[in-house]
Structure formats: C-alpha cells, structure tokens
C-alpha cells in the first residue's frame, strides 16, 4: 500500500506495520476473513472502526450558507471591514491611544501656562488687526477663496 515509504528502523516494528497495512487492504477490498490470524482480525476491526465517519456532521445547507457569507464579505466596503482583526492588534491600538493620551496630558501640565499665554497674545494681536477695514476685506477674500476651493470638487 505504501511500499515506497522508508521502512521503520526496528525490523519487528516494520513487520507489524506490514501486518497493519495488509489488514487495511483486506478491509478495503472486503477480502474474506477465513484465513486471517488473530492479529489480522484485530487490525481489521481497528481499520473498520477508524474508517467510520464522525457521528456529528455539518448542517445540510452549510455550503450554500458559507457561499452567501463569502459573497457578503466580498461586497462589504473596505471602510466597513474590521481594520484590526486580531486581539493583539486591537490591544496594541488601545495601548498606543492610552500612551498618546498620557503624553498629551504631560505636555499640557508641563507647558500649559506658557501655551495659554501664547494663545492669549495671538488673540489680542488678531483683535487689534480686526479694527482695520483693509484687514477685514483681506480676511473676507481669503474666506471666499477657501470656500470656492471646497465647493469646486463637488461640481464634478
């Protein structure tokens, strides 16, 4: 049956293997059992038990159901697909978000006063310019230009 395979290193084991294989062959070809010795009969029983299908089985509509699922997965837009499928990826993402949050907090605590002062002075400078009508006109032009840029792609 598998005569081309390398024999087992122990000759007694190889003889036993050959007896096992003869029993498998006899069982598959439904050979008569009359001439079998005790060893062959035992191995034939074992071969018969091993060739029995499991009691549990897949549902009858398994193939159709899996095919439907595969089609649905294929139609799902990439944006709806789960980007991080393994638990490791999800945990890594959560860890990175937490580290980012802690880093932001540390920056705010260490440099918060300085940053607020800088923002305050910028607001004061902008409000000084806001009283100048030419500056207001420039701001309006920039706003119109930016609005036009945003609107243009939607026309395509």
């Amino acid at each position, binding site marked *: 049956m*598998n005569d081309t*395979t*390398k024999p*087992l*290193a*122990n000759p*007694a*084991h190889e003889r*036993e*293997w050959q007896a*096992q294989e003869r029993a*498998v062959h006899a069982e*598959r070809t439904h050979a008569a059992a009359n001439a079998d*010795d*005790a*060893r062959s*009969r*035992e*191995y034939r*029983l*074992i*071969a*018969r*038990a*091993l*060739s*029995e*299908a*499991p009691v*549990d*089985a*897949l*549902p009858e509509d*398994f*193939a*159709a*159901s*899996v*095919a439907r*699922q*595969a*089609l649905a*997965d*294929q139609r799902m837009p990439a944006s709806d697909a789960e980007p991080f499928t393994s638990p490791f990826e999800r945990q890594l993402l959560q860890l990175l978000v937490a580290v980012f949050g802690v880093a932001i907090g540390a920056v705010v605590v260490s440099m918060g006063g300085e940053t607020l002062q800088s923002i305050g002075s910028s607001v004061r400078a902008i409000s000084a310019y806001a009283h100048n009508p030419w500056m207001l006109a420039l701001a309006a032009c920039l706003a119109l230009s930016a609005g036009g840029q945003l609107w243009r792609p939607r026309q395509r």
Partner: protein
Amino acid sequence: MSTDRELVDAVLAKRAGAFERLVREYQGLVWHIVQRMVRQPEDARELCQETFLRVHRTLHQYRHDAALKSWIGRVAYSIALRHLEKRRIEIADIATGAEDDDVGLLDRVDDGFDLEAASADAELARHLRSAIETLPPLQRTIVTLYHLDELPLADIGAITGLAIGTIKSHLFRTRLQLRQMLESRLGAIA
C-alpha cells in the same frame, strides 16, 4: 488536477455557484480534519466556516503546485491547530511520533489472542470508538485522514506539515496502541 484548475478558475472569475460547488466538494475533508482536531461540534462548525471564508479570500494565492484538496486541508489544519494552541491543548502525545524510543512496544500484544472467543464485534467496535475519541488530536486526525479519507501519507504530510516518516510512525503506534487496548479490554471480558 485539471478539475481543480477549472473549479479554481470559476471561483476566481466569480461564476455563479462556483464557490458553493468548491465547498460541497471539500467540506467532508475539512470537517474530518477540524472535527477530529477540535472535537467540540459547535467550535468545529465555526472553524469549518472560517476555513472556507479564508479559502475564498486567499484562493488567488493557490499556485496549483499541490492538489487543491491538500491546500484546503492545510488551511483547515492550521485554523484548528491555532484554535487548540489558544486553548493550550496538547495536540500530540510526543512519544507516539518517535519510532524507536520503545523497543518493548510489541511485547504488550499477544499474537495468540482469540478475538472471536472473547466478544462480539459490535461491542468491540464501541470500545474502539471510545478509544479513538481519547487519542490526542494529531493522532486522531492522522488516522482519520488515512483510514476514512484514504489519503496517501504524502498528502497527509502536505496537510499537517509533518515528514512522511513521522506520519508513518504516528499511524503505526496509534494502531498498535488500539490493538493493545483491544486486547486488554477483551482480557477483562474473557
């Protein structure tokens, strides 16, 4: 192999019903591998579905260098193996794969044992089925692929990634172990 190629081409061309045909063709093999490895029917069904969804996603990577049966079997085996590893379940009795570590292995069986005098086949078959269920997942899968699916050792090697000699050794020792169990059971009955 040419049928494999036609089937794969049809699935990749998204022809209606092609993937369902592929699932029908190989669901028996996948079920045998996953069910024998995992045993829990609910888990096994989910893993079978996962196997075919992965096959569907990655079929374009199949290069026809092995039979489609072996390629799909390999996917099923990998998924079942990962499932068992996550649950820290041992997949093999290590000693069963090593051929020559037990010279006295054959001493425990008796060639003069009168099987038919001891018990009826039906009862023996029941005990054998119970014994098969208690085998470690890898051994159970190998004997099923060999006896039930009638795959050659080389195909089982392609599915499990094990050397042919290792598979032969697993088969030999598992069947011998079942024979010893059979005889000890019969000895207790007789």
